């Protein structure tokens, strides 16, 4: 049941998406590189590898990294 809550929230949000969004001429702010969802992919990859090696969780944002992470 606990796992269904985020899914339901996601579906509700998607259902409400008809009222969201902007017109093409309103994208000046969204077009800035610092507003890109993956604005710093290298920082993110480095962080993911560190946390993958030190914690039991990985991925979520994208795929988990490769490697042993044994130490």
């Amino acid at each position, binding site marked *: 049941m606990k*796992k269904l809550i985020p899914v339901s929230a996601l579906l509700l949000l*998607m259902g409400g998406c008809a009222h*969201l969004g902007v017109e093409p001429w309103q994208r000046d702010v969204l077009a800035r590189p610092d507003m890109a969802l993956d604005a710093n*992919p290298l*920082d993110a990859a480095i962080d993911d590898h560190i946390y993958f090696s*030190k914690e039991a969780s990985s991925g979520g*944002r994208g795929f*988990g990294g490769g490697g042993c992470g044994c*130490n």
Partner: protein
Amino acid sequence: MNGKDLASLLATATCALLGTSSPARAEGEKPWSLDTALLLYKESDSRVQDVSAAIGATRRFADDRVLGLNLTADTLTGASPSGAIALDRPQTFTSPSGKATYTTVGGRIPLDDTFKDTRFAGSASWTQPMGRLYTVSGGLSASYEYDYRHFGANASLSRDFDRRNRTVSLSAAWSKDDIDPVGGPPLPLSQMLDVGATGNKAGSKSKDVLDAVLSVAQVVGHDTVVRFNYAYSRSSGYLNDPYKILSVVDPVTGDTSTRTPAATGGPDGVYVFESRPDSRTKQSFYGEVKHDFDGRVLTASYRYMSDDWGIGSHTVDARFRWPLGGGYVEPHARWYTQTAADFYRVSLVRGQALPQYASADFRLGEFDAVTLGLKYGHPLASGNEWSVRLEGYQQTGSVPSGQLIGNQARRDVTPDLTAVFLQFGYRFGL
């Protein structure tokens, strides 16, 4: 705004909506965009140190076709907790190679300082539009360590909806890893043997990992974009850490049972190698919001993860990019907490039947972790950018008091971790 700036902004806007990285940067017409980093990572108490160099290159072709390449090289040295408990006396262990011993000081959690590793990792991806609303991409990844090899392939399909305000993506990745530890992989729950004895070692092992991610990116308003991911991951095969052990202890004192090593040298206590299940299924929900406050950008995310090993975790991450002078500062905070795996044990008790699975790896235990960091980035007139980032990470573990036996209660049983990492970055176009 001139035409080139506009073209660059539009290209970046497309990427923002597609939820992909931003290949067309301020330098606009330059076909290659390179992102480089040098990372220095250091843990307290002479534990792991890593020097890492990474480069990400993006080549943009006509019609929004994009080639992505990444290369990373790491050099690791230092010491890592073996899983054995602390005792008041020094402890001697056989090193993973089986050819020597090492001795740790009394009163502290034993660290195995025999590892030294170099890792090379690379990946390549190709992304292109398919029709007006679809984007497809495919990629390969590989990494190499002398005791570990990884090979993976991935593919993804995205579709835009609602004037490109919403992008739904489905991605899948498969990987096959070969594990060939120093001295051979030990048999699960077998005892650590004397120097030169190899009766508890097996041949090389492998594991397969299958990942799938369903992602929805949504523009909420002219200054806000959100993303939700559901990720599923299934690993099967050899999932042990071949270097981790557990102490076998006296049921009353909680101290490690002693043994007499052979003349060639060997452990002076009873230790067994860990045993994990041969499959693991993880699921995670990830949500992220990015909001512009008149030039200042907040990025906040939350992830919930749970797996069939009994581990559940929450991760909250926030960074705030604030223009300063000709550049920007970006403070960062991250909070993480996880519950322990069902088979996490501080130690095993002598005389009791061995459980099927057991691990004393602190990364499978219960702990909280906090990261605080600060980044400064400085764009140059050429459109290139340099940056420096400093982050501090602290882990604080806890063990259910019911697991502690005798003297263990008055000793340190969780190897709390403090790490600092410093990263220099330079981004440029070619």
